[in-house]
């Protein structure tokens, strides 16, 4: 399992680069590095469904980001400036919060099952009944489209809303004339 840790360290480095670099295109490429590492980790933890979706969604995400950045500007001019007082204050406050949050989360992580030994209380039933009740060989498809289909309906609603939101934000008709 050492490769999981290597990928996680790579992701942390890429994430720090993505937040701190001046060129926004480079930041988006670093974000893509994080996303594709997530896809590889999904394969390593035996989730091929998630890996397929993550790869294709990551490609589309980067295409949309690049389309937006190419139309506007690719320089983050806030990085070069001197730190203002409020920014230093925000960073210090965030550091305090992050340390407290980190300690709390580490304590909370002690209560969930350790890595590699998931308790399968609900899932055991789904695995046993998946083929006889739902009939699909892919148990993830059984869960999202048969046992928990209402989740998927809610997801479809959210996606529909976001499409309507983007189209309404981007349309030209009804905009105020300059």
């Amino acid at each position, binding site marked *: 399992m050492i490769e999981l840790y290597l990928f*996680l360290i790579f*992701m*942390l480095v890429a*994430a720090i680069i*993505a*937040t701190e670099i001046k060129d*926004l295109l480079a*930041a988006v490429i670093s974000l893509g590095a*994080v*996303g594709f590492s*997530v896809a590889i*980790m*999904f394969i390593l*933890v*035996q*989730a*091929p*469904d*998630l890996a397929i*979706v*993550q790869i294709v*969604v990551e490609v589309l*995400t980067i295409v*949309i*980001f690049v389309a*937006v950045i190419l139309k*506007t*500007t690719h320089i*983050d*001019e*806030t990085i070069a400036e001197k730190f203002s007082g409020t920014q230093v204050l925000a*960073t210090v406050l965030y550091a305090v919060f*992050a340390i407290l*949050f*980190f300690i709390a989360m580490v304590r909370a*992580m*002690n209560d*969930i099952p*350790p*890595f*590699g030994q*998931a308790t399968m209380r*609900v*899932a055991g039933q789904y*695995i046993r009944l998946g*083929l006889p009740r739902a009939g699909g*060989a*892919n*148990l*993830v498809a059984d*869960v*999202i489209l048969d046992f*928990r289909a209402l*989740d*998927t309906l809610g*997801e479809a609603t959210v996606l529909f809303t*976001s*499409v309507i939101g*983007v189209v309404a*934000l981007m349309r030209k008709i009804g905009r105020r004339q300059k």
Partner: protein
Amino acid sequence: MTIFVFCIALFLIGLYAIVTKRNLIKIIIGFALIEYSVNLLFALIGFRRGALAPIITKVHSAHNFVDPIPQALVLTAIVIALGTTAVMLAIALRIYERYKTFDIAKIKKLKG
């Protein structure tokens, strides 16, 4: 447990970008990082050592699979993440069209 802590660290980097950065694109990148970390944490919680991917290949065989429920939850969350990112980018584009900057401090000053 160490591997969960790494996911929390990734989450905190994303939150750092949202809270302290002044560039709108950087803030959206922070949201994307948080989404990755949470999705990854879910998939890692459902992992079992020595288990197979939850896909049945023979009808009567031993069922030694990883947990399919977190995978089903994350599967929908990944696509939603793309939708929310697109909405945020659309809002950022409109803001840039109006103020010609991504800096939220300058946007606050340029009212009207």
